[in-house]
């Protein structure tokens, strides 16, 4: 007569299953593999994880005395301010500058870069670039690529748009109206 309790019996059976290469042992092996893959996956995204893991523990005490902790993810948002820039009477060999501002309305500082400037054609003979500072600062101006400008969260920065007309602009460019669109991106540094 087996005088062990049902629990003891079940444990004995489990040991017996492991010892005999049963499905239990296979499950353990699979789980080990899973852990390894998970570790590798997390290590692969370690950088991003670090950014996203920024956290803040905030103890909130309600009027009833209850305490809760809330973690809210940050946001990244950038916006160009003001109306469409107007530039007139541009002629071959001439350039015009105009300042505009961008606001970082998110929660993290953003490094600003120029994605593209569209609307520049051989027909209008225009070239354009953007500098990450006021027009009088003499900052480097780029048609595409990063600016030397990081806008802190909730801050506004001034940029300078320079539009020039090539000396070889065609005669047909006279009086032409062109619309340019400067595409900017702010990226968490």
């Amino acid at each position, binding site marked *: 007569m087996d005088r062990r309790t049902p629990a003891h019996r079940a444990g004995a059976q489990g040991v017996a299953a492991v010892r005999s290469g049963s499905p239990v042992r296979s499950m353990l092996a699979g789980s080990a593999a899973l852990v390894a893959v998970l570790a590798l996956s997390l290590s692969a995204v370690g950088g991003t994880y670090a950014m996203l893991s920024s956290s803040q523990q905030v103890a909130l005490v309600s009027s009833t005395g209850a305490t809760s902790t809330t973690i809210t993810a940050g946001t990244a948002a950038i916006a160009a301010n003001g109306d469409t820039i107007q530039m007139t*009477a541009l002629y071959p060999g001439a350039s015009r500058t105009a300042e505009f501002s961008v606001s970082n309305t998110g929660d993290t500082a953003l490094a600003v870069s120029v994605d593209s400037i569209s609307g520049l054609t051989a027909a209008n003979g225009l070239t354009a670039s953007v500098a990450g500072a006021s027009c009088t600062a003499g900052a480097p101006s780029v048609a595409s690529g990063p600016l030397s400008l990081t806008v802190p969260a909730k801050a506004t920065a001034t940029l300078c748009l320079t539009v020039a007309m090539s000396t070889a602009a065609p005669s047909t460019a006279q009086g032409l109206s062109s619309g340019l669109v400067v595409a900017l991106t702010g990226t968490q540094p």
Partner: protein
Amino acid sequence: MTRRIPGLRFSVAVGVVVALVGIGSGVGVAAWTGATTKGAAITAATAATSATGIAGLAATYKPGLPGVSAAMLTDTAPVTVSNTGSAPLSYSLTATGGSAALGNQVTLQVWKAGATCDVSTVVPSTATTGNLTTPPALPADANSAAPGTGLSLCFRSSVTGTYSAAGGLSTTPTVAVVGTVGTNWSASASASFTQTAGFNWYEIQHDFSAKCVDANGGSTAAGTNLILFPCKPLAVNTNQSYRFSQVGTTAFYRIYIGTGSSAGPVWEAASAIAGSAVQLNTIDTGTTTKSNNQQWSVVQHGDAGDFRIVNKNSSLCLTMTASTDNTVFTVTACGTSLVNTNTAYRAQHFGFVEIPS
């Protein structure tokens, strides 16, 4: 028989999912970027210009005759250029369509206009110089204009060289002021005008008889005598109209008749002997006696407006000894009397009446 590990397939599937989740989490960076755009409206300028006064270069030059008529060998015209566009322009001059035969003999000077721009204005040292075929560059102090501004220029054209080479020629160039900006933008304003190297034509009147020097019978044949005949209405191209063409820079002239052409005939003393007839003959441009017999000087003598016509070869004076029609002109020794009632004075003094043209 292959043994399979129970649950392995499940575990691998879960691992793949986790890996994909991990990889997918890389996109999470995009959530930490923001994008925006800024628009700009660009309006290009235009090049446009206007000019006034270029047509003022229309001119008829005349060589004149010393003591008789003043030469008119220059023309001065103010020219105003306006930049009516919205781009600054650098200006230059061009000339097209004219006759180089005269255009190359007409000097064109351009300068920034001062208080005056007329025949009496002294050409400043800053003036640029070209000709009607190849105009000069604009002067450095007046070769560009901002939008809405302009240039105030003074143009002067002048016949250069010997008038005998230019006389009778004309040209009608189109002169343009061309404003440029860049390599492809330009605007111009132009005007055409005619310049003619004309002649002073005269009737030559015998003072005493008040009759004219006339080619007998209206002929232009060699040997046609010049005779005294009642003056006809003033008109160029008659047998009583004459022009004086200076020989080089000398004081002597060949005298052409209006019924002839630029090739002649011209006056000629038949010989150097006193009493020789004065006739029409074909031009001899050599250095021979015949050529000198065809050259005359016009010398003011006696009363105001009285002239003697003296032959180069013989130094004899043109003489009309009568007042009778058809009397042939001759050459005789020049008198010395300054008294207009003197017979010799009466025979050898003439007046000039310029024919309008």
